[in-house]
């Protein structure tokens, strides 16, 4: 006991009882109330990027990330087996667009779009998100290519839409200029062309890529040269089989 405090016995008994009863009542009352999780229907219309910037009081980077964390909390009610499936995707995309415009260098909105919201089993909703990623990719290809690369994979494997996947892969190959971007991302179009049985186009692209000399890793070069030979063999085989 410090010298600035009197002993417990100095406290009137009714105060102790009142404190204990009030604390118990507060905890019981709050325990009986459940904080409602925001549901899909609660997602309000998106504000403008300017409004978000004003709300951020000069901290757009913080505001954009906080807004993303807040957006994630929607549709978290327990009765929803597939998160986000019921969200209004028009509103969701408007929110993502506004947040991205608030801090264009943040990767969070496009990452969430590609890895979370585009994984929706509803193909129409998934396509809307993929389209959003594609639209936003053009503003900063060197920073936003990972989201579009994942979008290409989703288009190919989830939607079975090879032309769409090729469109995304071609955009990555054409618009990215940063040398640090891995070659697999820039070579995606070639492999998608192979899957589409566009062997001649794939051979031309792969040959062109090897001819540029941008592939300096010997193992990678050997692997791609092997793929080129394989393509040429398949092409020769198909041309021989053609006249039969």
């Amino acid at each position, binding site marked *: 006991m410090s*010298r*600035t*405090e*009197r*002993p*417990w016995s*100095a*406290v*009137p008994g009714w*105060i*102790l009882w*009142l*404190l204990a*009863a*009030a*604390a118990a*009542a*507060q*905890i019981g*009352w*709050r*325990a009986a*109330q459940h*904080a*409602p*999780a*925001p549901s899909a229907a609660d997602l309000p219309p998106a504000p403008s990027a300017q409004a978000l910037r004003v709300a951020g009081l000069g901290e757009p980077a913080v505001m954009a990330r906080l807004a993303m*964390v*807040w957006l*994630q*909390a929607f*549709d*978290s009610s327990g009765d929803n087996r597939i*998160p*986000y499936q019921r969200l209004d995707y028009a509103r969701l995309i408007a929110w993502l667009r506004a947040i991205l415009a608030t801090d264009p260098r943040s990767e969070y909105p496009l990452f969430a779009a590609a890895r*979370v919201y585009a994984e929706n089993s509803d193909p129409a909703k998934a396509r809307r998100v993929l389209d959003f990623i594609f639209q936003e990719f053009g503003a900063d290809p060197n920073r936003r290519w990972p989201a579009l690369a994942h979008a290409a994979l989703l288009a190919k494997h989830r939607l079975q839409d090879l032309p769409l996947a090729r469109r995304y892969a071609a955009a990555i190959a054409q618009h990215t200029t940063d040398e640090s971007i891995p070659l697999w991302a820039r070579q995606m179009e070639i492999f998608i062309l192979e899957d589409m049985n566009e062997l001649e186009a794939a051979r031309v692209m792969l040959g062109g890529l090897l001819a540029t000399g941008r592939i300096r890793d010997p193992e990678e070069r050997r692997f791609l040269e092997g793929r080129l030979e394989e393509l040429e063999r398949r092409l020769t085989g198909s041309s021989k089989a053609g006249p039969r």
Partner: protein
Amino acid sequence: MLVEALRSGLPWLAAACVLVSLGLAGFLSRVAITESSALQASMAGALLRACAVFLIAAHVVASIAREANDKGLELALALPISRPSYYLGKLAGFACAGALLASLFALPLLAWAKPADLAAWWLSLAAEAALVAAVALFFASAMAQTVPAIAAAAGLYLLARAISAIQAIAGGPLASDTPLAHAARWTMDALALLLPRLDTVTRSDWLLYGAPPAAELAQGLFGLALYFVLLAAAGLFDFSRRNL
């Protein structure tokens, strides 16, 4: 307490808050292309609520600090008056000052809101101001210095306003499943038990779309009253143990 509040600069500050809030809301309504009245009402309501909370908290802390510096507490307790009576008298006085402040701030909103809706908002603001007075009195009595007391009161208030959103985010579908995340969620839930739900009271949307149903309003006010009693009991306990 009321005489002290009237003699201090509180009425002038309150009048200035009314003028600034109405001016700012009026300016924003001029630049809005639609819902200008709704914008004005909601903006003025939100600003006046924040002003009421800040003014009453600062007034309580300043009053207690001044009394401690002037040795007024020792003088008062030298009279035949018990400590609980002294503390509860102070609390009642500050709560009445809060109610007066709420009344002053509610009056100009009559220009936009229906009287019945405004009555619910006013009642809620008066209860919230009384609760903030109890928070400020507790911290001002327990802490010897002004700035820590105001900071603690502001922290508790902001946490109580945000705790439901924090809980929703912590329990969202994208929250990780690690033991650390579980511990964070559990901590948030436990913390919520010790806080009032200030996010459900004195909402500006009551002024626009009508007051909540009576049962919902009563539930919110009951929660505030319960926490008021808890703070009063905690303050009495601390005050009774203190050596002067």
